[in-house]
């Protein structure tokens, strides 16, 4: 914690790591968005005669056990979980910011109730919460979005609340108040610049966590169901064919590793 405040300038190294991270994320995003446009194909079309066959022009990464193009399945998988992850993070940021500022500004019972709630949520492993929400909410996409938002907002709430409390007590904010500026102005000029960098870091970590969770749930068969192209599901399906078609398994593994590494680097240094 104190590390981030006391040392503002180990900049060059961090910036380079961030640039590498951004590049990795962009590469994966380009594959997801441009891939199917460059090479037309259907992620669900089977041709059993080509099962586990190697790469060819129509399927640059070869075929899976049902003769579906790995390339197109991978691209569509990368169009599925990252948007869910980003949507959850945005929801979490909105909720965390609103409730965090509210708790810091109002204090008293509002603060106490919210803090007790987040303390309890912190004690629950995130994946467990997502599993429970997934069982309650109908629909996998909405379930994952709701569950992940519920897990992720706690982090943003805590960051916002801690930073806002410090800022609100500062002489600068008192001066603004005495000059008659309203809460909206104070938030924009005093609070937001203070918490924006932290938010960015936490958002990148949150996105990585969410993508990881979706893939992990797919891998243990509680996430998305069979024909959907999903990263975790692809991996567990292709695992038995490792000897026959190593490239088929390596494609989703590499994709998720590059994506997560990119996001981690983009987030910058943080202890955990």
């Amino acid at each position: 914690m104190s590390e981030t405040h006391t040392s503002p300038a180990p900049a060059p190294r961090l910036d380079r790591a961030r640039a590498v991270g951004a590049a990795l994320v962009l590469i994966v995003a380009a594959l997801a968005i441009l891939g199917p446009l460059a090479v037309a194909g259907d992620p669900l079309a089977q041709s059993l005669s080509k099962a586990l066959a190697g790469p060819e022009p129509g399927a640059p990464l070869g075929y899976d056990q049902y003769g579906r193009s790995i390339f197109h399945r991978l691209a569509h998988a990368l169009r599925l979980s990252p948007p869910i992850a980003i949507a959850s993070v945005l929801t979490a940021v909105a909720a965390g910011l609103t409730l965090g500022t509210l708790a810091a500004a109002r204090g008293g019972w509002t603060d106490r109730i919210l803090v007790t709630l987040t303390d309890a949520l912190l004690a629950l492993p995130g994946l467990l919460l997502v599993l429970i929400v997934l069982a309650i909410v109908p629909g996998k996409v909405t379930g994952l979005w709701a569950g992940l938002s519920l897990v992720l907002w706690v982090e943003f709430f805590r960051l916002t609340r801690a930073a806002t409390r410090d800022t609100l007590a500062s002489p600068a904010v008192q001066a603004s108040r005495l000059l008659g500026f309203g809460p909206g102005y104070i938030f924009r000029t005093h609070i937001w610049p203070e918490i924006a960098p932290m938010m960015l870091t936490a958002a990148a970590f949150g996105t990585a966590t969410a993508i990881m969770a979706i893939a992990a749930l797919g891998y243990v068969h509680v996430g998305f169901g069979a024909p959907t192209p999903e990263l975790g599901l692809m991996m567990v399906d292709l695992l038995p064919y490792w000897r026959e078609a190593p490239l088929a398994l390596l494609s989703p593994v590499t994709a998720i590793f590059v994506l997560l590494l990119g996001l981690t680097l983009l987030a910058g240094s943080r202890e955990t």
Partner: protein
Amino acid sequence: MKVLAARLGQAVMVAVLIGTATFVMMRSLPGDAAWRIAAGRYGYDNVDAASAAAVREELGLDGPALPALLQWLGDLVRLDFGKSLVTGQPVTAELAHQLGASAALALVAVVMSLVIGPPLGILAGLRPGGLLDRALLVVSTGLKAVPQFLMALVLIVILAVQFRLLPAAGHGEARHFILPALALATGLAAVNARIARDAMARIADMQFWRFAQWKGLSERQTLTRHGLRNVAVPLVTYLGLQFVTLVEGVIVVEAVFGWPGIGHALVHAIFSRDVPMVQGTALVLGLGFVLVNAGIDLAVRRLDPRAAA
């Protein structure tokens, strides 16, 4: 004492939260819960409207919500978790069986991570900027980006499938521990090592450290007399936070390796909508986290008396 009271409050909140969540889950099961449960009990080919109705009657799946919630939470307070909807066994009996397997796995994983991570971190922290330090930064950043299920997959492919050194699944013998524990331990070790490294680098830069060396202690003596305890404080504190990662990992890794523990049971319970089992497993995991952290609060006070003042 104040810390313990706070942890107790946290535990109560966790129980209420899980109790309410599982109750909502019970109420809002997609599809007809009674049919699902009956199918789980009697097999999918043997379900008919009569058996579903019997299940509905037995479990009280109809009726107003609020009294049912209070009764549900009341059962929780009396530590009555009910019976598994699938096997018909009391939840507590099943949990007692699974908790041992999970705890053993988690313990082996933590010990493994502590053997791998902190020694490397301390060595790196003694020479900041050195070769080991830079290598460790790259490796630990890479490992942190590998989710546990992916690590499990890589280990299975390399050690079990390719070289046939270790069994990919199974339970009972010591060698069955190695792969699942290693899958959990690598991620933990990556974080452990970084924390130990940062703490070591910070301490080695302090005046008392230089004084100890100046008065003639060898590096080894300085480390054992003045270094280890200081490094242990952040390490133990983070161990509590890492427990969340560990529990999440246990859920996934057990499911991957077919380990007969709480995580495996939770995934299965979610899958078959076995709400009492979900509640039981979730409670054990959540309260386990609070308990471990209470223990860690106390341990940190023992290690660093300044914290208590």
